């Protein structure tokens, strides 16, 4: 097969940090070539270099055998490179149609010839099976449809090489299947696709070849036939992944928190709690299983003092809770890994260092006079220590947290929440969006906290995660508790049925 793209010795540095280091990568016409790697391995950076959003520090790019310099996305588009970004580049205030024709340079004239453009788009969408509702505003269509708009947008601009950056991250299983159909149609028509992912199953399903990136460097390129999921996983994280079996605890200590018949917005099936009774003991992990949106968020908010239940009782370490305030719970040594790390867990425009000490600034080692005057030097030293301990990969601890990858953001939260030596840890979707290595780190940390005598309430929609670490499993459905199971040899079928409300 004919080569369409070759990237040679690409290096990209941000300050002192290498995001890409001497990467070689090549794509042939009509193939699906996957870039596989953990979060922060440099996949997105490499693609942003290809798309002209970043300028490579070193290295060269060849398209169809000719050396090219891509200094802007406009240039990339002109060369026939289309990119579907992980966070869609769609203007929400505009319609699907307007988004597709945005930035159009192929047609002449000052005014928009709506009928002619519409016809062209319709033809394209039929050719590739990309059906979209053209007059709907972007805000009114589903995520899967938004992605189709993105692909259509790229094709409309004449893309021959299409980059899909983690396209399945936000999709449901059915939508993923639809996307794969589209990808197959695209390659059948001679287009090439670069597929970026860290989901092994999908990668093995759709790719022709796979290039693995680790810590900013390319490890190797493999044909799909000659590899297995295990090989890929090992290459990706650079060490053997032992199928983990954490030791399960059966006899927990005294209850750290105990809920009795707690109600909150009882009538709401998806955002309420209905007669919830449960307890978390010292030194155990209680996993709350269930499909997202069955009251788990509310449960997390009750046990962290964010909302006050309508009725029922909550006991904290043996004494009744009278007033629900987040600060009161923090003083009682309740730590929280919130469900949305960007919106609830971190202050994106503050540095790694500041986020780490956010909850503990009034301690005498970090400030004098109860937080009146911060001891910057002590904080800095502490943060550097934490950076090492939790393996937070950042350019410096003064980097803004919003610029970190998801896994490293989560590590910042872990460092803040676990170093205070909590009695109760409430972890909500703690590994959502993280790659295997980072998820493993989060689990190890949780287990270590448990062994230290901390009670852990793990709320997750990821059933495998629940099975892996929970000592006790509680299933929630529509705000109610459907059943409680031992974490040792749990009855998986029974739990699955309970999660579906049966």
């Amino acid at each position, binding site marked *: 097969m004919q080569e369409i793209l070759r990237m040679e010795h690409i290096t990209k540095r941000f300050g002192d940090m290498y995001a890409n280091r001497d990467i070689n990568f090549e794509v042939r016409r009509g193939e699906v070539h996957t870039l596989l790697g953990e979060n922060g391995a440099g996949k997105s950076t490499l693609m942003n270099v290809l798309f002209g959003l970043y300028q490579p520090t070193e290295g060269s790019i060849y398209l169809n055998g000719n050396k090219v310099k891509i200094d802007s996305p406009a240039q990339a588009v002109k060369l026939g490179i289309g990119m579907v970004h992980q966070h869609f*580049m769609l*203007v929400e205030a505009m319609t699907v149609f307007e988004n597709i024709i945005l930035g*159009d340079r192929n047609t002449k004239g000052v005014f928009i010839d709506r009928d002619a453009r519409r016809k062209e788009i319709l033809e394209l969408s039929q050719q590739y099976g990309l059906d979209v509702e053209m007059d709907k505003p972007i805000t009114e269509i589903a995520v899967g449809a938004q992605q189709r708009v993105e692909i259509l947008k790229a094709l409309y601009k004449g893309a021959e090489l299409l980059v899909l950056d983690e396209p399945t991250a936000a999709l449901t299983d059915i939508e993923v299947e639809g996307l794969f159909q589209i990808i197959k149609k695209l390659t059948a028509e001679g287009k090439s696709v670069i597929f970026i992912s860290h989901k092994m199953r999908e990668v093995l399903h759709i790719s022709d070849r796979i290039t693995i990136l680790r810590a900013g460097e390319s490890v190797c390129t493999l044909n799909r036939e000659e590899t297995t999921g295990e090989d890929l996983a090992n290459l990706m994280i650079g060490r053997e992944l032992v199928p983990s079996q954490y030791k399960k605890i059966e006899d927990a200590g005294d209850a750290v928190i105990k809920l009795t018949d707690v109600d909150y917005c009882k009538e709401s099936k998806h955002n309420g709690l209905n007669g919830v009774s449960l307890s978390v003991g010292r030194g155990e992990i209680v996993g709350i299983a269930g499909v997202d949106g069955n009251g788990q968020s509310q449960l997390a908010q009750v046990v962290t003092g964010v909302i006050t239940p309508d009725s029922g009782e909550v006991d904290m370490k043996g004494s009744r809770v009278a007033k629900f305030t987040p600060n009161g719970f923090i003083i009682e040594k309740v730590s929280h890994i919130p469900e949305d790390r960007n919106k609830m867990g971190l202050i994106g425009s503050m540095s790694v260092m500041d986020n780490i000490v956010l909850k503990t600034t009034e301690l005498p080692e970090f400030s004098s006079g109860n937080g009146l005057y911060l001891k910057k030097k002590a904080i800095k030293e502490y943060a550097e220590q934490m950076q090492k301990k939790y393996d937070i990969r950042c350019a410096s601890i003064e980097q803004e947290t919003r610029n970190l990858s998801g896994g490293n953001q989560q590590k910042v939260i872990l460092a803040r929440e676990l170093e205070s030596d909590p009695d109760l840890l409430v972890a909500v979707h703690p590994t959502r969006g993280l790659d295997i290595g980072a998820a493993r780190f989060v689990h190890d940390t949780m287990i270590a906290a448990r062994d230290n005598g901390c009670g852990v309430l793990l709320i997750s929609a990821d059933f495998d995660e629940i099975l892996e670490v929970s000592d006790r499993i509680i299933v929630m459905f529509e705000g109610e508790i459907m059943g409680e199971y031992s974490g040792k040899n749990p009855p998986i079928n029974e739990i699955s049925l309970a999660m579906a409300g049966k």
Partner: protein
Amino acid sequence: MEFVTNLILASVRMATPLIFLSLAELYSQRAGLVHIGLEGLAAIGSLTGFLVSHITGSPIVGVCAGAMAAILVNMIYAYATVTLCAEQIVYGMAINIFAPALASFIYRVYFGAGSELVQVPLMTNLSALLGINADSFIAKLFLEQTLMVYLAYGLVIFTAIYFSKTKSGLNYKAVGEYPRAAATLGINVIGVKYIASIICGALAGIGGAYLTTCYTTTYVDGNVAGRGFIALAAVIFGRWSAGGVLLACLFFGFCDALQIRLQVASFNVPYQFFQMIPYVATVVVLAIIGMKKAGPKSCGKPYRKEER
């Protein structure tokens, strides 16, 4: 009847500078630049317009010079907020402090402190240019206006068409909504922002110059009198569309005209009370309308090219 027709005629006159200033704000915000410094741009435009029309004797040349001067001042704002990614509010405020002071300074230097009031001829009306005698209300409304009034309404129509019907207008809007997306589509985000700043400066300068070439015959410090801020309100009130902005300006122009007439017509009420009307209307309108967010999404946020 006389009262009503005069009121309407005055509303149109009063609305004109607001239309220029609001369109300046609209073009700026559509490219993601919130500009609270229109007051300052209008002040420098007002002084330059006055000065040049005094020197050349031509109000039209004065208006053009006013536009140029405001563009120059606005380039400070553009360089700071677009190229250096500085805070837009801070630089808008800086323009508000710097530009009127500069205008005042130039006036003093040129005419000397404490000299008598200098006056310039106003721009002639269209009816006078054409030699038509306009007596009826309709004729007065449509013909007895300066060229600037027609320019203002022409610009409103142009803007409405530009943003809804043209490719370039669509790209322009994308810059204010989601600059990163616009950049990935090959739109020159920085370029559009600079163009927006030039348009904004020109229109704000014209709006200011209108005050000294078509409205009053002289320049006094503070003659912009908060119109820059009312224009900001008019853009919000008008939901960031040219048509809406026009209606909002007519409303505020009406309040202004009403206020002057009530001052003259009533006794025993302090005139300051009526002077409040346009400003109170602004506050009330913003309180009612302002809570709904509808403006360009990335307004006020700087665009950095290589941000992770």
